[in-house]
């Protein structure tokens, strides 16, 4: 990077001496080695795949690459896995990471744990080709669909247990876990039974979203949930925006950035957020309750994707196998223990591999689940871009 900068500024001459002496030489040596390696790989795999010479970067399933044992061996040889933007307190990631590291002896580097989906994709682009580049991503659907050219197709062993609507046909992205929009609130308010109660005078400065709805997906869905409860449809978010306008006029809107810390401190007392981020165990306070407007089930799922230029292609695929595993200590049940709804939950409920104790702790959702389509999400975002600041400013 610095070299490019220096050369662009015409300082190349000054630095030439120093550069020729070391980094360039290594860079050239590196390129030469990579070329040799690549040609070596392709020639050996074309002459018939014999276990160790499989290039996992090109494999689209574990069976195509020679089975689970081959994958585990190759991943252990890589020894490292780069993940990004997985907060240890989010959806039980702390325990998922530990379990994987212990089980396979592979070290996991979690870059910018509090990063956003867009930052994950930016990292894939900016660190492309380096050993630091993220191997796998856990991203929001809008960002996933906008960047499919960066991902490698892969179908996990449990592929058939993932509902067709929740995966790309070729496995370039696969939804992993998610939840439904819910209103978390401090139990000092008693029991909330309707959305319009929140417009009352006892809720002064109390009601928050999880971020700015033109930037954060959870906030956009918070406005959409209100919209559905106020008689709006998924195609038009205007009713939701109007409701927040009334909330602001009543002095009940709390614009402070809402986090687990602000909930613990008491600054955030009511927040519209995904149900798995609204559990007492997640926010860390015991006097925390959840209300979901009856009949409103607005769902949102994150998705997994593998970086097509992953520096650790086998470890990346082993991680995916682990995340979608239905074992008692597999990714699906571990997510569930973190309050998130794993994508294979319906199948696991029928084949009884689900952790029933964890499943029973989830808030009850009634009504037909609504998932915003890409077009609906874009329309809502565009409407918010034009009207949100005006409505609540």
């Amino acid at each position, binding site marked *: 990077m610095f070299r490019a900068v220096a050369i662009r500024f015409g300082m190349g001459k000054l630095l030439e001496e120093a550069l020729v002496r070391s980094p360039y030489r290594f860079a050239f040596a590196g390129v030469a080695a990579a070329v040799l390696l690549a040609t070596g790989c392709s020639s050996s795999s074309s002459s018939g795949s014999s276990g160790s010479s499989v290039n996992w970067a090109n494999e689209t399933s574990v069976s195509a690459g020679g089975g689970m044992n081959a994958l585990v061996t190759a991943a252990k040889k890589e020894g490292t896995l780069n993940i990004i933007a997985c907060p240890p307190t989010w959806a039980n990631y702390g325990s998922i990471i530990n379990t994987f590291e212990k089980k396979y002896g592979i070290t996991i580097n979690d870059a910018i744990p509090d990063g956003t989906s867009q930052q994950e994709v930016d990292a894939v682009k900016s660190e492309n080709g380096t050993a630091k580049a993220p191997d796998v991503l856990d991203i929001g659907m809008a960002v996933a669909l906008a960047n499919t050219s960066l991902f490698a197709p892969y179908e996990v062993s449990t592929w058939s247990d993932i509902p067709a609507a929740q995966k790309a046909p070729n496995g370039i992205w696969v939804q992993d876990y998610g939840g439904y929009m819910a209103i978390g609130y401090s139990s000092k308010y008693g029991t909330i039974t309707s959305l319009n109660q929140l417009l009352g005078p006892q809720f002064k400065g109390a009601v928050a979203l999880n971020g700015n*709805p*033109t930037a954060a997906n959870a906030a956009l869905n918070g406005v959409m949930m209100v919209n559905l409860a106020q008689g709006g449809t998924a195609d038009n978010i205007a009713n939701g925006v109007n409701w927040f306008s009334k909330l602001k006029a009543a002095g009940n809107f709390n*614009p*402070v950035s809402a986090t687990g810390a602000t909930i613990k401190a*008491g600054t955030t007392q009511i927040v519209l957020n995904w149900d798995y981020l609204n559990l007492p165990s997640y926010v860390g306070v015991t006097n925390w309750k959840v209300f979901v407007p009856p009949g409103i089930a607005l769902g949102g799922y994150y998705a997994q994707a593998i970086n097509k230029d992953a520096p650790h292609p086998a470890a990346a695929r082993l991680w995916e196998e682990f995340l979608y595993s239905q074992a008692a200590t597999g990714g699906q049940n571990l997510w569930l223990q973190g309050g998130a709804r794993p994508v294979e939950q319906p199948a696991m409920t029928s084949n009884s591999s689900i952790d029933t104790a964890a499943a029973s702790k989830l808030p009850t959702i009634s009504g037909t689940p609504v998932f915003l389509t890409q077009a609906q999400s874009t329309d809502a975002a565009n409407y918010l871009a*034009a009207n949100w*600041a*005006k409505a609540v400013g």
Partner: protein
Amino acid sequence: MAVAATTKTGARPSRAGRRLSAPAWVGTVPFFAYVAIFLIWPTGIVIVDAVKNPSGAWAFSNLSEFGNPVLRGYFIGSFKLCLISSVTGAVFGAILAYAVASGDPDGLIRRLYIAVSGVLAQTGGVTLAFAFLVLIGPVGLLFHASWYFDFPWGIGLIYTYFQIPLMVLVFMPAIDGLKVQWREASENLGASSWQYWRHVGGPLLLPAFLGATLLLFANALSAFATIQAWENQIPYIVPQQISTALSSEVGLNNVNEADLLALGMIIMVAIVMTGYALLLRRAARWLR
């Protein structure tokens, strides 16, 4: 020249009559290289990318976005916030600076004020928002002042926390520049205190005062972390919208829009700083 060269102190070696020596010129290279890499280059990128579309082609039609009422709203928000916080900060800061300056020039009070102002003028961002949150937030230690969330007055008053000390720092030299002799002369001629301020002190300080106000204005323009921590769910000002344009995860991310907004801010700062330079030149005549 010859005299200077032969004085004992040697503080001013002879320079006149000789060409600038090479080592002296080389000494400026780090500065200009620094400015080029960290100021001129990024500014150039912002300006160029502001008139391109996401695929990299020229799109001068981007500039018409400045007429978009939504985008203009963020600039108006920024302008209001900067105006309120800079005028409030300037008035109170000037009064405070005058009070301190009229005391003992080597006294403890003055040294204390200068030192504390130097620290507080740099206090902003999340730390500042947190401090206010703890005191007057929804569960504030003192009380809950919900109107502090009203834009622009609430956040504007929070900004004065660092604007007033900055005003003290930049305005104090101007007050120190008022010569005692001017006041004595006007009193000898029979002027009242009001007449002195109306015809002598006021006109002398006005350019410095207005200049300092513009500096505060520019200072508030770029402040981002404070308002982002204080009220991040509602975008009011340009830096907040730049953040959205860079990192929106609901499909509204557009780097070129961020560049365009940044270009708008560069223009705003350029206007303000030009005004500042002109006023400073006028003020400097009297404060040598």
